[in-house]
């Protein structure tokens, strides 16, 4: 894996951790994880459900105590008697928090504002989150996207230096997801540091300066999204199934094929250009009396990087 290591490693990192471990009775959730997040950077943890992303950010947020490892945030550590001061500078959005349904949007933001010594104006934050016209509406009456934007407003109202977002757009329709991304981008433009978890490659590609691909509690790749995709050595991906068996080496030996992955039922071919390769694939199959079924081709994405590294999809169970 490629970890860019600036000369002054932990000294300038907004958030950094070394050798982070969290063990639960039935699973090793986080297995020796290192990362450095630079000030002003948007850093993504991309991985499937259960990869240890949430456990990792909750340890960084000081909500879960690690079994081993060291965490530094904004030059401080948890449990040194300065946790409250540290929390003054953090904004947090947790997965699946249900805010009180009986309160209005404005009352909720005002409540969260009251916890911070320094913070932003309540009306301004509601504006930023596009909630001004819903200010007097009860939280229980909001749509999923509006609830998520309210969660963001509550995270932003303390004017944080570091914003933690755990699956900020999961379960939202594309329109609502786009609005969430715009809010995060605005925060970035003002110089804020963001750490987010996601299992949507579009989200990671669009928002993140760097992405750590996480699987089984470890980082298996870490770089800028474009660099990770380039590391496949392929621009396009051909995916298909067949009605019988064919040798992996035979597919890999075809001209123009960079690498071949077997992902459950499907063959995944990383290629430079799909057009010239497809006929030779079809011919190779025909030579064995096989038919190509369920064919698709697409531009390489972060998902393909994950598939290439693990042989599984981000959303496979």
């Amino acid at each position, binding site marked *: 894996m490629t970890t860019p290591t600036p000369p002054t490693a932990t000294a300038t990192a907004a958030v950094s951790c070394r050798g982070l471990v969290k063990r639960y009775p039935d699973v090793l959730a986080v297995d020796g994880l290192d990362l450095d997040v630079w000030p002003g950077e948007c850093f993504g943890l991309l991985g499937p459900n259960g990869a240890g992303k949430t456990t990792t950010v909750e340890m960084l947020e*000081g909500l879960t105590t690690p079994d081993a490892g060291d965490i530094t945030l904004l030059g401080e550590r948890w449990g040194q008697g300065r946790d409250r001061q540290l929390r003054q500078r953090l904004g947090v959005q947790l997965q699946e*928090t249900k805010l009180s349904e009986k309160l209005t949007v404005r009352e909720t933001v005002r409540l969260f504002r009251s*916890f911070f010594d320094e913070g932003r104006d309540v009306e301004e934050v509601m504006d930023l989150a596009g909630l001004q016209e819903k200010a007097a509406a009860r939280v229980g009456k909001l749509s999923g996207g509006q609830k998520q934007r309210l969660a963001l407003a509550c995270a932003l109202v303390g004017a944080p230096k570091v914003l933690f977002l755990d699956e900020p757009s999961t379960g939202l329709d594309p329109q609502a997801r786009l609005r969430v991304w715009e809010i995060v981008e605005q925060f970035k433009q003002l110089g804020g540091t963001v750490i987010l978890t996601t299992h949507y490659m579009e989200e990671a590609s669009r928002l993140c300066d760097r992405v750590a691909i996480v699987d089984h509690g470890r980082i298996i790749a870490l770089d800028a999204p474009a660099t990770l995709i380039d590391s496949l050595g392929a621009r396009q991906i051909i995916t298909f199934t067949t009605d019988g068996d064919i040798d992996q080496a035979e597919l890999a030996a075809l001209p123009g094929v960079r690498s071949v992955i077997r992902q459950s039922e499907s063959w995944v071919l990383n290629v430079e250009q799909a057009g010239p390769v497809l006929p030779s694939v079809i011919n190779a199959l025909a030579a064995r009396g096989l038919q190509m079924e369920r064919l698709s081709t697409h531009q390489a994405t972060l998902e393909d990087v994950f598939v290439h590294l693990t042989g599984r999809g981000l959303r496979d169970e």
Partner: protein
Amino acid sequence: MSNRRLPPLWELTLARILEFVREPEAVFWVFVFPVLMAVALGIAFRSQTGALTSVALLDTGPPAARAELEKKLRTSPRLQLRVMNEADAAVALRKTRVEVIVGLDPSAPPAPADGSTPPALVYQFDPARAEGRAARLVVDDVVQRAWGRPDAVASRDGPPPTRGSRYIDFLIPGLIGMNLMGSGLWGIGFSVVSARVNKLLKRLAATPMRRGDFLASIAFSRLIFLGLEVAAIAGAGRLLFGVRIQGSLAAVMLVSLLGALSFGGIGLLVAARPRTIEAVSGWMNLVQLPMWLLSGTFFSYERFPAFALPFIRILPLTALNDALRGIINDGSSLASLWSPVLVLVVWGLVGFVVSVRIFRWQ
């Protein structure tokens, strides 16, 4: 651009108050239900001065003797007499439509028809019921006097019980106590555990909110409704049944406040760990059950065996009921009620201190 903020304790307390008043069902159970219960029980157990004793007279035996007995019984205005056959009378007694059955004793020799010699009688009643025992005495007294028994001792009835000693007077303070227990436990238990289930507690723990502020806001929001809760029941008692507070109103409010804080502490303790609404409901019921049964809300706990009384007296609801009855019914001063007050303080302190230590934020 304004960037004011109010103290977090104020905002947290306000949020809890708004959550409560925007939940119409909670308002019903805390304010309306106890008043309805006071009204229903007050009517069912209203003191029946001059109430009649219901008597069944059996239609068996020699008609002349029976007619004479009926004539004698009808001379008393205290009896409500019904003539029945044996089967009907047995049913009426079982259903307590009558308290006693009186009939001619079939095993005794028949009395002369001229009525000069009194007949022998048999009473049937439920000796386990106070009303049955009293009815037997009333009927027997009427019969004995009618056949000429002189009173050996001169006696008369004193004035009827003053206000303050009727059942409704006993009941109203008990209902206030029970309601403070219910709203303290359920009001806190449900909202804390559902905030935990919804990960709201975890979200709050991720802010710089002082954890003590959160717990204190729970106590404060209880205090704001306390006055209304007590006023609803005490007001209904006063307006509908003329239940008066014999002692000082300030003492009633102070004891209610202590009671609310005490049950607030216990409610917080019960809600400190459970992860589901089902679990906290079970614990709430377990905590309340002994107090529903033992703490003397509806009848005096002095009826329980003497060895159980010290245990019953240290239950917080017993202490609250005793203190409230002392002030409302007997006009006692706070100083004379130091022991139940101490019990309330200890329960409240233990509840808050322990729950702060073991509270589960996620």
